[in-house]
């Protein structure tokens, strides 16, 4: 935003540095040489959007193309939204300050369902028709991607195209196609969408599918409009992850954002297969980056940024085969330069003294583990292969190293959960406190503190629990109370997620196209920032469900049959439905399965290659 032209407005809103741009390492190009202007929208605040590694990667990958200019866009906070409506300021792109409705492609990353109302608010603020079928030749192509695109049916009416899977190769291809069709003169909106769906891989164009519903409300038909349009859209992945594009000059925010540090993406995918976890399924197969590549990227980023923290990101960092040699190589120079290492996704079962020593070199903070469930029986059922001894051993190591604060994350409402499992959460926290007093060499000056947090389980598409009903809000509240009642120690702090938000999330996560009407009703009522407690309103959601004639329980609390056509069946992630059914049945028997390094469970993702046993499977 032009800080001179809009100085008075910037002075009237909170945190104006969110809007002024000009950050170091931002990409500015000569407009006259650009053939495709790309607006990359993050439907949440600047502080959250700037923390997202995926955006960093795609921004960099698109800007590698000489004739494409990708700029960043965030959701203006509500005070700025008011000013924009009052003074007719259309939503602008961060780098150029130009209105995004003049762009060629407007892309949204869909990271969580609760940001959907922000997508509509942003389209509206931009002056782009919200409904895809109301857009004309002069309007941008609106695309969506990210984890929610694996079932984007609830927002299907608002998008022209969804990019399914990893975007660093797919999005440049789409931009190339756009430029090519424009140069040859064959471009029309309709032809471009058709070409994206039929000539490229990994692009789902919802308007090219016919969806019908039976009398029971369940989908009866989900068909492509002709035989050239794929029946199922295959997700894209980057097969050669070690050589894949990775930005080493990230845009550096001036103002404080959530994650502001060097982020190394150590590997993609996860070997574990926890049965509630969508990320563990959709990012399959596992692909590693080499220690050499990671060390080179870390050194380049340090030189280009001056950050004093390196975070090793991935779904479970200690599953990286070379975690020891990587951390050894890094601390050779990080300690001397006062750079701290953080490993945000530690598993309790592979936490060692050596790892503890490496992360407490400079500026160490508290430790967090995610046992997810309170008893071994339930941890087996959800395939979280962490034993109680592992957790106690991990906290023992942490206490020995002088830590006194530990955070433990759990979920409640998991399939097969009983009261015994729920009470087990409080009991586990008590055992952690006991472990503290058993630890020789603990930090005696500070009393221990264990914080337990429970999220409400939300059944997600592309998991073994995708057919499972969510428990009721009242039941969530009862189980939360049960935990609270079983905590008898002031050293244990208990936080829990709001079951109402989790309910709406459950509706949207497994929703179909009819939910677009609910989101329009929400927009009419001025909704945005529903992911933020201060703006989430269950009353508004209830009103919108009613006005749209939608029964939310149908989506959140209904048990699906294995035979039902699911809204996300149109997407092919490699992992098969058969595998999910097998896993669901094992869950009912509280039986864990092996991880991808121990043996292959035949999930189906081997068709994509990968670094575990998948490659051997494929060669066979």
């Amino acid at each position, binding site marked *: 935003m032009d800080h001179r032209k809009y100085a008075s407005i910037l002075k009237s809103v909170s945190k104006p540095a969110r809007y*002024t741009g*000009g950050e*170091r390492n931002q990409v500015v190009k000569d407009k006259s040489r650009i053939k495709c202007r790309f607006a990359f929208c993050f439907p949440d605040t600047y502080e959250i959007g700037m923390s997202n590694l995926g955006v960093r990667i795609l921004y960099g990958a698109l800007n590698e193309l000489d004739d494409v200019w990708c700029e960043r866009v965030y959701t203006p906070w509500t005070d700025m939204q008011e000013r924009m409506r009052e003074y007719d300021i259309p939503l602008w792109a961060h780098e150029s300050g130009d209105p995004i409705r003049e762009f060629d492609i407007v892309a949204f990353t869909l990271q969580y369902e609760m940001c959907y109302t922000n997508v509509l608010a942003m389209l509206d603020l931009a002056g782009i028709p919200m409904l895809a079928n109301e857009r004309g030749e002069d309007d941008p192509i609106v695309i969506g991607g990210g984890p929610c695109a694996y079932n984007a049916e609830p927002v299907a009416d608002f998008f022209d195209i969804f990019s399914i899977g990893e975007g660093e190769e797919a999005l440049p291809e789409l931009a190339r196609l756009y430029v090519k069709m424009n140069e040859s003169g064959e471009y029309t909106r309709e032809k471009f969408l058709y070409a994206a769906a039929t000539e490229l891989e990994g692009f789902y164009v919802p308007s090219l599918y016919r969806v019908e519903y039976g009398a029971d409300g369940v989908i009866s038909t989900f068909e492509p409009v002709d035989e050239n349009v794929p029946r199922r859209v295959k997700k894209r992945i980057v097969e050669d992850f070690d050589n894949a594009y990775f930005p080493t000059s990230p845009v550096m925010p001036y103002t404080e954002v959530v994650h502001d540090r060097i982020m190394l993406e150590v590997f993609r995918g996860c070997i574990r297969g926890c049965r509630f976890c969508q990320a563990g399924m959709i990012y399959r197969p596992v692909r590693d980056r080499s220690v050499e590549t990671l060390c080179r990227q870390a050194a380049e980023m340090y030189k280009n940024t001056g950050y004093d923290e390196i975070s090793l990101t991935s779904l479970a960092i200690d599953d990286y085969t070379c975690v020891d040699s990587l951390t050894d190589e890094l601390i050779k120079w990080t300690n001397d330069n006062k750079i701290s290492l953080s490993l945000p996704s530690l598993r309790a079962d592979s936490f060692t003294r050596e790892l503890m020593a490496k992360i407490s070199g400079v500026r160490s903070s508290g430790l967090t583990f995610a046992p997810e469930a309170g008893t071994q029986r339930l941890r087996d059922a959800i395939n979280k292969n962490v034993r109680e001894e592992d957790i106690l051993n991990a906290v023992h190591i942490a206490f020995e190293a002088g830590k006194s604060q530990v955070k433990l994350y759990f979920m409640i409402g998991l399939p097969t959960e009983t009261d015994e499992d729920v009470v087990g959460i409080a009991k586990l926290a008590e055992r952690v406190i006991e472990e503290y007093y058993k630890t020789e060499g603990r930090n005696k000056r500070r009393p221990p503190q264990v914080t337990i947090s429970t999220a409400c389980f939300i059944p997600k598409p592309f998991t073994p629990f995708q057919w499972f009903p969510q428990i009721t809000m009242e039941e969530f509240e009862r189980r939360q109370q049960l935990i609270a009642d079983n905590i008898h120690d002031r050293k244990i702090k208990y936080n829990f997620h709001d079951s109402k938000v989790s309910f709406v999330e459950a509706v949207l996560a497994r929703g179909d196209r009819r939910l677009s009407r609910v989101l329009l009703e929400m927009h009419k009522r001025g909704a945005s920032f529903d992911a933020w407690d201060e703006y989430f309103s269950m009353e508004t959601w209830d009103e919108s469900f009613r006005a749209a004639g939608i029964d939310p329980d149908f989506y959140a609390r209904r048990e699906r049959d294995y035979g039902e056509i699911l809204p996300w069946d149109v997407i092919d992630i490699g992992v098969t439905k058969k595998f999910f059914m097998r896993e669901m049945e094992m869950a009912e028997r509280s039986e864990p399965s092996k991880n991808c390094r121990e043996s292959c469970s035949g999930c189906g993702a081997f068709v994509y290659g990968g670094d575990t046993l998948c490659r051997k499977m494929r060669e066979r």
Partner: protein
Amino acid sequence: MSENERAVTQPATAPVRVAFTKTGALSFISHLDLMRTVTRMLIRADIGIYYTEGFNPHPKLVFALPLSVGVESTYELFDVKVMGESADYALIAERLRRESPDDIKIIDAYAPERKFRDIAYSDYDIVIRGTGCCDDPVGAVEKMMAGPIVEMKRTKSGETECDIRPFIKSLVCEGGRDELRIKTRLDAASESYLNPEYVVKAVTNATGITLDNIAPGGDVYGITRTGIFDIDGNVFR
């Protein structure tokens, strides 16, 4: 520990004072944001910064006078220490220039001449374009300067009435109803520092100007710090 031992354990460091500007979009970042931005600039410049010892090592960075959000400056100062008996100030200035963001310009790097506690005054240019100005704003401001100027001032114990006139060393006003241009020298010693926003408030009160129309092209005011001085009015170095 004897004095000799202390001398051995403390590494030799050389003090560096950096004069810089902070303008444009960067005027909207807070003081904390500026500290973070400068810290990273210092690390990228690779000039052997001295870090504090202890639990959370960080470069020892001290700013002369924090700026309010929205205020620009053509003369800011910070102090930092570099490792070694002496510092190559020209090299430091050159490295910092290479690594500074667009809206920070490095003016100079040199050995500090005086301590920040000797700062006495700071100069500001203020431009006000508002609505409802009286016919003779320059006269109104002159009249304002003649008497006490009572403003509500924020203190630790809430808001209190305070005469800010003694903290305005000098003030020259020119322009007319559409635009007032003010040059003022304000007290900047730590115990009697006057935020220039109070001068804007006093001038708008005295002239009848309102700044309520925030529409683009509507009412606006701008403040730029242009200098920092010692008690004798010499440029502070």
